[in-house]
């Protein structure tokens, strides 16, 4: 069960509209390495995980990603507030506006709709945790790309910098989770079986 908290993890207060930047940042909502993919990935992977500490990690990071979705959606909403038709016509926001006006619809910057085709939940703890480590790095580099685009927008820059820093912390925690899972296995060959599926897995004894 989840409870909504009527507060963001980090303040987002953007005063200037910038539809072009909103289009770029949208990728971190519904893009291949965005926050919606992150929360869906971690919260789905929990059910095949056996280690209670790692289930807690997936639950809590997945939950934090839900807040990051709201932060990114808030950034986009504030960047597109009070847009004039002229500003829409002269920015990359033109195509998005036709279908969604200034509403929030999860998509990549390229226009590709949000899809779980860009994430995995394999049912194998070691494969999933490697996926999670890669996901945090991909999200980190996407934020790095966005930071290069918003150097002149301090309000946006600070919020993106915070989100980038969280990717680094999550990467660290997933690294520790992988170590915890591996410590519970036969160290001679971690990859001989799926500890959540094959009967000979020691953690199922």
């Amino acid at each position, binding site marked *: 069960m989840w*409870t*909504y*908290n*009527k*507060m*963001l*993890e*980090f*303040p*987002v*207060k953007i005063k200037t509209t910038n539809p072009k930047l909103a289009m770029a940042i949208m990728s971190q909502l519904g893009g291949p390495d965005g926050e919606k993919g992150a929360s869906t990935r971690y919260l789905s992977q929990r059910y095949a995980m056996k280690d209670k*500490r*790692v289930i*807690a*990690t997936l639950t*809590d*990071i997945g939950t*934090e990603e839900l807040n990051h979705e*709201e932060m990114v*959606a*808030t950034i986009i*909403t*504030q960047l597109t507030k009070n847009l004039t038709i002229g500003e829409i016509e002269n920015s990359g926001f033109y195509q998005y506006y036709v279908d969604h006006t200034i509403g929030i619809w999860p998509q990549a910057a390229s226009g590709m709709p949000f899809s779980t085709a860009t994430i995995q939940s394999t049912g194998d703890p070691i494969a999933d945790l490697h996926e999670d480590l890669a996901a945090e790095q991909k999200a980190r580099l996407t934020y790095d790309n966005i930071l290069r685009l918003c150097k002149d927008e301090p309000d946006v820059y600070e919020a993106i910098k915070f989100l980038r820093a969280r990717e680094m*912390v*999550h990467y660290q*925690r997933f690294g*520790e*989770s992988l170590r*915890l899972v591996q410590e519970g296995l036969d160290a001679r060959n971690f990859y001989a079986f799926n500890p959540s599926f094959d009967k000979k897995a020691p953690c199922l004894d």
Partner: protein
Amino acid sequence: MEKMCKEELKQLIRSTNFAVIELGLYLNTHPTCACALAKYHNLKNTLKEAVDVYERQYGPLTIYGVKCEEEWTWVNEPWPWQEGGNC
């Protein structure tokens, strides 16, 4: 805490809440760390108190925080993405 203004209280809640989340993530993979556990309990109490003071003065932060018995105040305060919201 009672004397803090709305912005100060929000900042205290946001920063303490962040520290509790961060300590929780750390404790998930280091559950025997006594130092982090002590910090968690200390900050959790500060957070509880700050949220209580805030909710009595300015309105609920979660659906469990509605204090007013005459009015459904959950819908009154702006949402985080709106102007004046808790962002």
